């Protein structure tokens, strides 16, 4: 615990030093604060609502690239591309996970609405990608079959 506390204090000290130097405003290292409620929700629809993706319309312009069958549920590659103009964020959910919300990604200043990552899947499940674009919300999903579950327990 001591080493973690030392790292924490060291990193906080570094952040404060940078703030004092006027290089960044305190609190602006990340644009958003961690959405505890959405990330701990046990239900996709509820998590979507809590993260601002509620009432999303199904869209064919969200492309989800996932394996049909994941050999290892601990590491399932997921790529999401949004072809919806004005996309500002993409969120990923795995319905059957204990906490379905996987990630919420905001894009700005030229970043393309594309994300590639690897997720844990507890069992065969729908993988959902939701998009915020132009003040509206959209969503798409794909099913991924999992042969060996990936939450480790």
């Amino acid at each position, binding site marked *: 615990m001591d080493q*973690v506390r030392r*790292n*924490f204090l060291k*990193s*906080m000290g*570094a952040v404060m030093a940078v703030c004092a130097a006027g290089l960044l405003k305190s609190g602006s*290292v*990340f*644009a*958003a604060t*961690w*959405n505890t409620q959405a*990330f701990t929700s046990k239900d996709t629809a509820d998590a979507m609502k809590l993260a601002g993706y509620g009432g999303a319309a199904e869209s064919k312009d969200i492309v989800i690239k996932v394996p049909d069958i994941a050999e290892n549920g*601990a*590491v*399932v590659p997921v*790529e999401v591309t949004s072809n919806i103009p004005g996309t500002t964020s993409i969120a990923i959910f*795995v319905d059957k*996970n*204990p*906490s*379905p*919300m*996987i*990630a*919420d*990604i*905001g*894009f*700005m*200043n*030229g*970043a*393309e609405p*594309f*994300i*590639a*990552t*690897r*997720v*844990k899947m507890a069992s065969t499940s729908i993988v959902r990608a939701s998009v915020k674009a132009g003040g509206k919300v959209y969503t798409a999903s794909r099913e991924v079959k999992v042969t060996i579950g*990936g*939450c*480790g*327990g």
Partner: protein
Amino acid sequence: MAEEMKMRATMQGDAVDVKVLIQHIMETGLRKDPKTGKMIPAHFINQVSATLNGKMVLDMQWGVGISRNPFVGFRVKGAKVGDKVAVHAVDNLGTVFDGEVVVA
């Protein structure tokens, strides 16, 4: 902290393609230690941001469902060779991970 993050940034057309790999256990908090019978506490990266030449391009919140040794790939339009891409990540215990790479 630089050893824990591997980054690569290469131009693909008019966008830079960035790949990041961070060494991290991404412990969910749902596993039991078989020896002690106690739950292993959650320990996972929960916030990641990326900048291009100091300007934020990506702002991510992660949950425990991101795989161990997290990988993330993203693209930014308008980048050019020589530009600097930096990634800043923090985990739920407050440990900070920083990495940067020059666009090739």
